[in-house]
């Protein structure tokens, strides 16, 4: 009882006194994260706005300037044109009516999405396996089928952000993180019956996919659904991967 009362007083002190808050800013940030730990994802949290947690967050000190390989820049241009339903973006300066995207980006090796840490395969492989909504190849829709794959690159591109966001470093948080993902190859048709025995149990059973990778694709962070658990299996002499979605907010498959 006493500790709860003290906790209440401390919260009031931190929220009412800007001077105190400034003095213990680092402590306050950690304390808020601690307080929000168990209300994250609840309706009460959203109603009461107990947590100021953002959908996407990353450590700005870990951003590194880098140049995108041309193949990935091309994919980014395609993705942006499809997303904005335009032909505005281009990877070359030939056409003056179009906006040439620079290959200069800020790369990051890990980021937090809805409170869950994701990373590139080079930084921490186990956090790079994801379930995501892949852009549909022959449609203007940017969110299509659910696929699984591995995040190979994550980056911010300042040219595709809102102008105001470039002025203010703090607003970097509101930018999209672009992810370069290598999807796992589809399963060979002869193993469809085994795949169906997993898919029969939907989100609890997962599914099978090939072990090889398909060509890279670009999505933004909003397309990421969840982590997946990945298990290499050998079934009837074929090397496959079992994919199990690890979504704790909803069951998707």
């Amino acid at each position, binding site marked *: 009882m006493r*500790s709860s009362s003290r906790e209440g007083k401390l919260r009031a002190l931190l929220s009412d006194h800007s001077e105190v808050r400034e003095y213990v800013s680092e402590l306050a940030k950690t304390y808020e994260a601690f307080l929000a730990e168990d209300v994250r994802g609840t309706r009460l949290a959203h109603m009461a706005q107990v947590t100021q947690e953002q959908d996407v967050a990353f450590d700005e000190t870990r951003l590194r300037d880098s140049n995108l390989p041309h193949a990935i820049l091309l994919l980014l241009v395609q993705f942006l044109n499809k997303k904005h339903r335009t032909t505005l973006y281009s990877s070359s300066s030939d056409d003056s009516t179009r906006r040439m995207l620079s290959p200069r980006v800020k790369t990051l090796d890990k980021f937090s999405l809805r409170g869950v*840490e994701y990373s590139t395969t080079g930084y921490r492989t186990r956090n790079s396996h994801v379930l995501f909504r892949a852009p549909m190849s022959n449609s203007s829709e940017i969110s299509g089928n659910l696929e699984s794959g591995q995040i190979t690159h994550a980056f911010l591109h300042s040219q595709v952000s809102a102008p105001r966001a470039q002025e203010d470093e703090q607003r970097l948080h509101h930018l999209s993180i672009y992810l370069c993902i290598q999807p796992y190859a589809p399963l060979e048709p002869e193993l469809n019956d085994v795949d169906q025995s997993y898919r029969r149990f939907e989100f609890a059973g997962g599914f099978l996919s090939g072990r090889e990778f398909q060509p890279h694709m670009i999505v933004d962070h909003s397309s990421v659904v969840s982590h997946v658990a990945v*298990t*290499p299996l050998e079934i009837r002499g074929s090397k496959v991967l079992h994919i199990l979605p690890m979504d704790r907010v909803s*069951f998707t498959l």
Partner: protein
Amino acid sequence: MNPAQSGKASSTTGAILGKDVMEAIWADMALTELPSWVTAVPYNWGTAVRGKLSANNWRVICTIHIPITLIRLWGGDDAPEDRKDKLQNFMDLVCAVQIANLRSISKKEIELYEHYIHRYMTGFKSLYKLAKVKPIHHAALHYGDILRDFGPAHTHGAAFYERYIHSMQTQNHNMRLGM
């Protein structure tokens, strides 16, 4: 058909998962790559040497590791009918546990939880005639009402209080409790 599929090893001991199935699960488990926020379970769970496991360990084993292997062994068309039934029954429990542990929950999901847990209990009684229905089974049948009244499990689960107590116990209080 391999021994793990036929369940021959289990028939002699009365165990549902025989040594062969356990070995298959351990082998797959060693290869599974999990996100960093999922607690890894002991590689030799289920043995006398390892002893008891935490509730979270059991949750990870039952919702991740066992389904991956058991569906492969018992989910095919060529698997014996009783194995298929037992797999279906176990997966009903897994579905119920997955829904009960969601971080956010809706009325539809609660109804789905109730559907799976009822089907699990009905199957449990018909498949395992000698097994007793324990109070935990009874409580699980009422858990839908608790979710309906109090929201997702983590908002009223004991894990929060346990962690909070642990956190308080680690504070320096100069040997005077309550400070």
